[in-house]
């Protein structure tokens, strides 16, 4: 399925407009100087990877190549390797593109619970729908728990998706305690003998202490009902997010114990570089990317493709 194709299609347009490539900046045969490095740093910063990560890459280039004649292959190889190091950490987060469920820690001997959280408007509900489709297509039975009892019509949104996908859904009254919805969801999961429960939560800014506590409660309730739950705690991050993504990941990890990131809305002009900054500071890998508005526009994260798409 064409994650990369779609992804690149989206980016192709930007590429044409910006027409940026390392080759335009570092010309073979020229001597690498400070002006070029600074311009390159600007290009890195524009991907939202943050000043620190950009500085690290530039420092590496400076160390290896400054004052020497540019050999394009070596330069891009250094950049790519550095980016891959930043993104993959110890290499445990390399996934099999052929097996779309490989990033998920699905339990072999019982039902799996997936908790999904994130700030407002990042695309949590849509990502859940896409993930459910993926699971369903791979022969898993999915139950959804509509834990966003706060935003007007959020439950309806997930119900619509559930209807389209043919998933069972557990709903709560508006304003109900999301933990109670999660609890009932877990009960339903056990009773119905389904494979996976996905718990939606209301969007919340990470500075809202009481709402973050509520998230922690949802997690505790799930853990009480199903052993080891939530087995996956996915944080959805909008690809347009800037350095605030760092703060989001920190706070949500504390409250919900994030095990992975879903990078949504990667089909716009934004490059989602903030996950580099995140990975640089924390050991939370990107597991999936959302690359479009359609239900199938969802794919396993692939470092090489991502680095290529950053177009630096």
């Amino acid at each position: 399925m064409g994650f990369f194709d779609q992804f690149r299609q989206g980016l192709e347009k930007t590429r044409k407009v910006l027409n940026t490539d390392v080759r335009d900046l570092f010309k073979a045969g020229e001597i690498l100087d400070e002006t070029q490095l600074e311009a390159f740093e600007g290009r890195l910063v524009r991907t939202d990877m943050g000043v620190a990560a950009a500085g690290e890459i530039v420092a590496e280039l400076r160390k290896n190549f400054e004052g020497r004649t540019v050999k394009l292959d070596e330069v891009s190889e250094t950049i790519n390797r550095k980016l891959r190091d930043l993104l993959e950490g110890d290499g445990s987060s390399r996934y099999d593109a052929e097996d779309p469920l490989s990033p998920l820690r699905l339990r072999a001997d019982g039902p799996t619970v997936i908790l999904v959280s994130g700030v407002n408007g990042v695309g949590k509900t849509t990502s859940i729908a896409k993930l459910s489709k993926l699971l369903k297509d791979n022969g898993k039975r999915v139950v959804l728990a509509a834990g966003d009892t706060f935003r007007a019509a959020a439950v309806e949104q997930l119900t619509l998706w559930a209807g389209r996908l043919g998933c069972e859904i557990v709903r709560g009254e508006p304003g109900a305690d999301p933990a109670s919805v999660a609890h009932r969801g877990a009960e339903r999961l056990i009773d119905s003998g389904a494979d996976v429960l996905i718990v939606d939560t209301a969007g919340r800014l990470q500075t809202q202490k009481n709402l973050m506590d509520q998230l922690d409660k949802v997690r505790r309730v799930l853990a009480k009902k199903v052993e080891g739950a939530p087995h996956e705690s996915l944080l959805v991050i909008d690809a347009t997010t800037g350095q605030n993504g760092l703060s989001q990941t920190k706070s949500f990890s504390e409250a919900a114990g994030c095990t992975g990131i879903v990078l949504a809305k990667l089909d716009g002009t934004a490059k989602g570089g903030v996950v580099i900054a995140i990975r640089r500071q924390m050991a939370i890998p990107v597991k999936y990317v959302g690359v479009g508005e359609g239900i199938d526009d969802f794919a396993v994260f692939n470092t090489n493709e991502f680095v290529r798409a950053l177009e630096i």
Partner: protein
Amino acid sequence: MFEGITTGLRGALSFIDRGRLTEANIREGMKQVREALLEADVNYDVAKDFTARVSEQAVGERVLKSLRPSEQIIGIVYRELVSLLGGDPDAREFTPESTASLLGIKRDGMTVLMMCGLQGSGKTTTCGKLARLLQRDGVRTMLVAADLQRPAAIEQLKTLGGQIGVPVYTEDPAASTPVQVCQNGVKAAKKAGDVRVVILDTAGRLAIDEQLMRELRQIDNKCAPDQAVLVTDAMTGQDAVNSAKAFNEALELDGVILTKIDGDTRGGAALSIKAVTGVPLKFVGTGETLEGIEPFHPDRMASRILGGGDIATLLEKAQREFDADEMEDAQRKMAEGRFTLDDFRKQMQMINRLGPLRNVMKMIPGMGAMAELDPGIDMDKEVHRIGAMIDSMTLDERRNPDRIDRSRRNRIAAGSGTNPADINKLLKDFSVMGGMMQGVSQMGMKDRLKAVQQMAGQAMSNPSGRMMQQKQRSKRGPLDELKAREKEKRKKKEAKKQRKKNR
């Protein structure tokens, strides 16, 4: 909001503040300013231009020879920041603008507002917030649900409309197109007669999606909205400028509304929107509830970014909320040293009306950092508790706190659901505070502010102190800080004497 920029800049500028100002350390300082701006998601080019402009002015001879060069540089940074935010740094007075004039609502006839933005930026919620503001000012408003794409977007707008009593025009998404909905919505509003503002809630889109941009242009052509407003997430990174540019090219935007600035977002990229597109920022969204919206003030924001606080907003609010007679009365009493617990309670209620204490503190210069101390402490709860304690006292006790003995203390604690140690602490704090207030109230306004900042500074040096500590204390009751300090001092003196003797 924008604490990120504030902290970063404060760090950068304090570097300049140290020692003598040379060309070299201006450059170093500017590098740090630039880094701080970038970490805050300010667009790369905007940050670069910004620091270039500032250092150009700062390196000039006039600055180097001036008496307090660092202050002058801060002045330059402030002025540049205000300009960057779209304000006039020379404007002294702030003239409040009504919601209607900010949104360019026509005096007579009907105004059509078109809201657009990326997915998840908060368009629908913002539509509801604006409708509520307008409705409150007596401007009849109608919402049109033209987002046929996101499941349940129509439902959401309907619910919001119901909450604020604003009619919502909807059509069946399966049998209509966004352009039709908008056209029919405007027609329906005209038919209703008394509707003065129509707000079109369009579908969220990714700026590069040609098809949806075309749809937006169609609505623009067919309905000829008077104002096109872009809703942008304040958390957006470097891409904010790209999408704003794309929307501006398609629609010629009239204004921008920044949402979700109540988080710890640095909001830098959103600031660059003004610099790059020239479209003014009009409102900021400050929460999920329908009340969470405020007009955008470039100058105030700039001074907040520089750590100068937002005294103007606070004063404006205070003037609206405070009872002038009561204030005067309280002040007179303070000066005379007759300030009782009862008066204290009244003052607390007044401050309460300004909003959550943490927000109030953020607006006072020098106290912003204190408000950030420990997000886990609910200051408003604390104020509420103190209120309950005072409420549980008799009038006589409030006027003469000395009269409160152990038995009374136990009664008050039982009545307010606290424990006797808390009551003790309150009484002690109050007597210390009474002395301070008497001093403060005899000063002029300027000295008073200084004193407040000093107090804040003291609290900063003892971050775990004051009201937050109670729960960790032993049952024996609070330790008397003053006495303990006295004791330490005496001990040191003794030791010194001893050393002298031994010599």
